[in-house]
């Protein structure tokens, strides 16, 4: 009885929301509905949410918009392929679409038959919510052997108060195709917003796909998002996540490598400040042999911010000759900032090369003094040290529009000058 009192009924949270406008399989919706009806909000007793408290979130109610509002937004790319979603709804007027050969780029609501074959699962409350209440998202399909040169940018802007955006994205890169997508999450004149997003990504045989995730929603925004990625034989996948702001940010990244000779890169940086909480949970599941994965996540935590990094790498039985490298580094800039870092390797094959490492430390005060003793101000010295620390993750970005945007945000938001 006591336990129920302490947790929150999930149906309260979603009671103002209307059912999804997307055609998920009926069975899946039933399953998700039942999940919400029977499952309470996760608590810190739940292994997956051990360091991320949802108690405050669970007591709130957010409203879904009925029509796509208009809003100002920042875009990263000069691309002609830009879709804009306001509070989770597609705004055609703000979007800019040119036809390219082999590229299908639409709002998912316009093409939601693709969901007949979705492999999305109800794995937790937020995926259940997503299936029951997603209003829209993108559908990207790059046809066999097509290369889309310019990055496809999707802007998700939150505006208004207490708004909820529930977004479902489907990205399919066919055999031999090449593309990159920017998911640009931001707020404009927004307060206390909630974003729930799932992106399903399938990277076909010998396909090459890069996903940039830029998170600059404001300090009142809650974001819970998941990328589910499958990678086939000979494919390349790179995801780069930059989390610069938010009240509570939870990123789940699940990569399943199902074909041999695949190459996987997952990189991320997070900058905690104020009372921000940022949580990255990543999973790389090597189910087959002869693959490589490289993971580098770095965090800089200031003020009273809290961070979580949980990185799992599975190497399944018979998945021999896997090279899997994982590293998480953190710098705490204040005594009140904390980070919980937990790298986990689970290896069931015997001929593999895997390593993981996690470091958390403060800025080297000797180095700060050294720089100051050469005439550099204390602030600039600290910034130089922080930039040096985070620089190698930024350098993993191989799109200059994305890295320029990132460095300009770092300058406007933090006064960092690179």
């Amino acid at each position, binding site marked *: 009885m006591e336990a129920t009192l302490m947790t929150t009924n999930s149906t309260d949270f979603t009671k103002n929301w209307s059912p999804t406008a997307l055609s998920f399989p009926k069975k899946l919706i039933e399953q998700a509905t039942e999940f919400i009806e029977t499952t309470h909000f996760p608590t810190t007793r739940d292994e997956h949410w051990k360091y991320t408290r949802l108690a405050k979130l669970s007591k709130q109610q957010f409203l879904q918009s009925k029509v796509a509002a208009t809003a100002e937004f920042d875009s990263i790319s000069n691309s002609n392929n830009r879709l804009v979603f306001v509070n989770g709804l597609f705004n055609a007027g703000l979007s800019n679409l040119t036809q390219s050969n082999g590229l299908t780029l639409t709002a998912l609501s316009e093409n939601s038959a693709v969901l007949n074959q979705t492999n999305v699962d109800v794995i937790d409350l937020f995926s259940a919510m997503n299936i029951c209440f997603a209003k829209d998202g993108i559908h990207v399909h790059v046809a066999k052997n097509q290369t889309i040169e310019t990055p496809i940018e999707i802007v998700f802007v939150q505006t208004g108060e207490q708004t909820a955006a529930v977004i479902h994205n489907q990205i399919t890169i066919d055999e031999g195709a090449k593309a990159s997508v920017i998911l640009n999450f931001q707020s404009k004149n927004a307060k206390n917003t909630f974003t729930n997003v799932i992106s399903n990504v399938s990277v076909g045989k010998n396909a090459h796909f890069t996903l940039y995730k830029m998170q600059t929603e404001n300090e009142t925004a809650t974001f819970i998002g998941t990328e589910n990625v499958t990678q086939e034989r000979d494919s390349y996948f790179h995801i780069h996540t930059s989390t610069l702001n938010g009240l509570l940010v939870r990123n789940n990244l699940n990569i399943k490598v199902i074909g041999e000779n695949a190459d996987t890169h997952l990189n991320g940086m997070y900058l905690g400040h104020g009372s921000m909480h940022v949580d990255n949970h990543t999973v790389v599941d090597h189910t087959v042999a002869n693959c490589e994965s490289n993971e580098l996540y770095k965090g800089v935590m200031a003020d009273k911010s809290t961070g979580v990094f949980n990185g799992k790498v599975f190497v399944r039985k018979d998945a021999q000759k896997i090279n899997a490298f994982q590293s998480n580094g953190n710098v705490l800039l204040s005594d009140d900032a904390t980070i919980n870092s937990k790298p986990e390797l689970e290896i069931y094959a015997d001929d593999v090369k895997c390593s993981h490492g996690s470091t958390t430390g403060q800025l080297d005060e000797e*180095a700060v003094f050294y*720089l*100051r003793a050469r*005439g*550099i101000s*204390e602030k600039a010295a600290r910034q*130089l040290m922080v930039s*040096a*620390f985070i620089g190698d993750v930024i350098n993993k970005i191989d799109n200059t529009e994305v890295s320029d945007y990132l460095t300009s945000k770092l300058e406007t938001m933090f006064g960092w000058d690179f």
Partner: protein
Amino acid sequence: MIKINNLHANIEGKEILKGLTLEVKPGEIHAIMGPNGAGKSTLASILAGREEYEVTEGSVDFDGLDLLEMDTEDRARAGLFLAFQYPVEIPGVSNINFLRTAMNEIREHKGMDPISAKEFMAMVKEKSALVELDPKLASRSVNEGFSGGEKKRNEIFQMAMLEPKLAILDETDSGLDIDALRIVANGVNTLKSDKNATIVITHYKRLLDYIIPDFVHVLYDGRIVKSGTKELAIELEEKGYDWIKAELV
């Protein structure tokens, strides 16, 4: 240039400097010698602005400025330079970039425009040649993976770039082979003018064969207990410090 008067300083409640007095005038080179633990690096650190030390008494006048009231970076901008006994490795921070930032901070302080990229690179070339520092090292991360001798040369390279009024070299000679010693000394001598001054902290007379000091001081137990000319260094090399200790009691 600098007037240190009756300086007392503690660290963690332990008194290290116990009334140190020293004056250095423009154009002069002073050597400070003294046994391990006497307080030589402590003096250098306090002058550079390290905050762990608590100054309990005394004053330091640097060209009319109350040095002890200034932040570390302001001291550097006013023309004070410390060549560290143990230079720090700073991975990811480029030697050249940081030096350019530092130089421009100092220039700004003097009311000068930032140095142009071209002028800066020409200067890097000239000054790295002066201390025979491989230009490749100049552009690497600060001291990262440098050998002991390379770190010391990098200190002198930075000094040459920043052109300080007062340079304090804390055991820049230790760990240097005889060639490097000559190179470092040559750097110091080339930069010497009647407007700047140098304090050389060393354990070895051999450095003073290359950098000829105007004065040699013995720092013992937190004070300057004896001052003389170059001959004092020779005497110390021959007789050690015991005779000085004996003189004191």
